[in-house]
């Protein structure tokens, strides 16, 4: 299912507008979180953990790829938020706390909306339909 959802060629990603990559990472994290929530609701601990880990890996990578020197207040704020989301996600997953998982998904969705705005302002490189109804409601 993910394979179809995220069917993007390597070349496309490498030549993409970096903001598009950011949007794809946010989409991935939100989708994996949603899946984790679904499994948590079913009491499937194993798959809950698998998808929470996938979402977490993306948040960690977003955190790793911050440039604190060039990104100023935004980078510093994002760093604090990513760390918060990382911790909050893990604790929610441990405790089967669905609200906690949903909180993280909502925080990501809010930031994603801002990045989508940046994408619209930036020169369009790559396929133009990237922002088409990718908003994910939790």
């Amino acid at each position, binding site marked *: 299912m993910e394979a179809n959802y995220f069917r993007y060629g390597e070349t496309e990603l490498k030549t993409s507008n*970096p903001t598009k990559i950011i949007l794809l990472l946010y989409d991935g994290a939100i989708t994996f979180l949603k899946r984790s929530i679904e499994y948590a609701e079913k009491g499937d601990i194993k798959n809950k953990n698998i998808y929470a880990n996938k979402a977490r890996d993306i948040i960690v990578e977003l955190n790793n790829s911050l440039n604190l020197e060039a990104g100023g207040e935004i980078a510093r704020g994002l760093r604090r938020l990513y*760390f918060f989301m990382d911790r909050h996600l893990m604790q929610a997953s441990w405790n089967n706390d669905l609200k906690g998982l949903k909180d993280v998904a909502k925080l990501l969705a*809010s930031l994603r909306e801002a990045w989508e705005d940046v994408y619209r302002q930036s020169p369009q490189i790559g396929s133009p339909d990237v922002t088409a109804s990718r908003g994910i409601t939790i």
Partner: protein
Amino acid sequence: MSLVINHNLMSMNAARNLTSTYNTLSKSISRLSSGLRITTSADDAAGLAVREIMRSDIAVLNQGIRNANDAISLLQTMDGAAQVIDEKLIRMKELAEQAATGTYSSTQRQIMNDEFSAMRDEIERIAQATDFNGIKMLNATSGGIQQVLDVVEDANAFDSTKAFLSAFSDFASGETMEVVYTDHNGNEYAATIALTDSKTISDIMASIEAITSLNVDATWTAGEGLTLTDNSAGVSQLSVSFVANGDRYDFTTTTEGVNGRVKVHFGTGNDSSEDYYYLNKQDLTASGLGINNLSIATQASAQAALTVMDQALITKDQARAHFGAMINRLQNTVTNLSIQAENIQAAESQISDVDVAWEMTNFINNQIKTQAAVAMLAQANMIPQLAMNLISG
């Protein structure tokens, strides 16, 4: 826990590949962000190197966090199954209590016994079938922990376990074999086994078992080697060495996760207790709980069953206590690893709760929109290949 990265060809290769990816990335960002003044790798080679080292440190820490999280899920799965076993045991105790009074007919007692047996079968099934990625933790083959030790090959070591056996046989009368071992508290001990011509391999095994502070069962299987089963309750690794004729033969665990316990590795090194824990397998099968031959078909047997059920409930409590304690311990470990990651990545003060996170998110959302160019730079150290791997999950 130290963060020293040892000399490691693979990690050096990884770092080199990362460098080339970074170069490609910074070039493409420079192209895309033309007009913006950004620091390129050429302008800031030292800064780039620091970032790479940081990335590898963070990657190691995060792998540790992932391993610990997997172990937590494993334990939660096992504890969930143990909880179901718990409910069955309580129902069995109720049935035993009911059958123990004299006011029921033997037919009625037989019906109770049928339910009692069905519960026991279900407990057996749960204990045998519950697994997490193929790892079973509720049907340990024996109580306590067990580890199988095998010969570690080194310059002086035997090239096969059979050679080890013949080496034992070759010892001349009057020689001694020294057994050096480290207990669960890290204390090293030595014991001496005298060898005589008449001693057989099973005599030597018996001598090893006779060392009370070592507390192991020793068996020799031709073609397979020496198996030491650790009978003590410690959770750290037990190491045993045999010293004879000036040679030292070290034995170490080779079948972790198969027999007795599961190793969870989260540290950057391989030092006992700082870098890994062992999760002890438990025996919640019908025989492990001591209820496999239990019947409540008569009043007398039902009365006897009550005591056995109490003991079974204690055994189950101990198993769940171990799972619970290890879950807590691993959660603390993850928290510590997260703090290390935050320290390495120079995070400012932590966001304490979700309300603060919302305020911060609204603020940053606004900042990103109004300063799009800076925002792009803020998130600029992205590696497209890595990103693709992450989202293709």
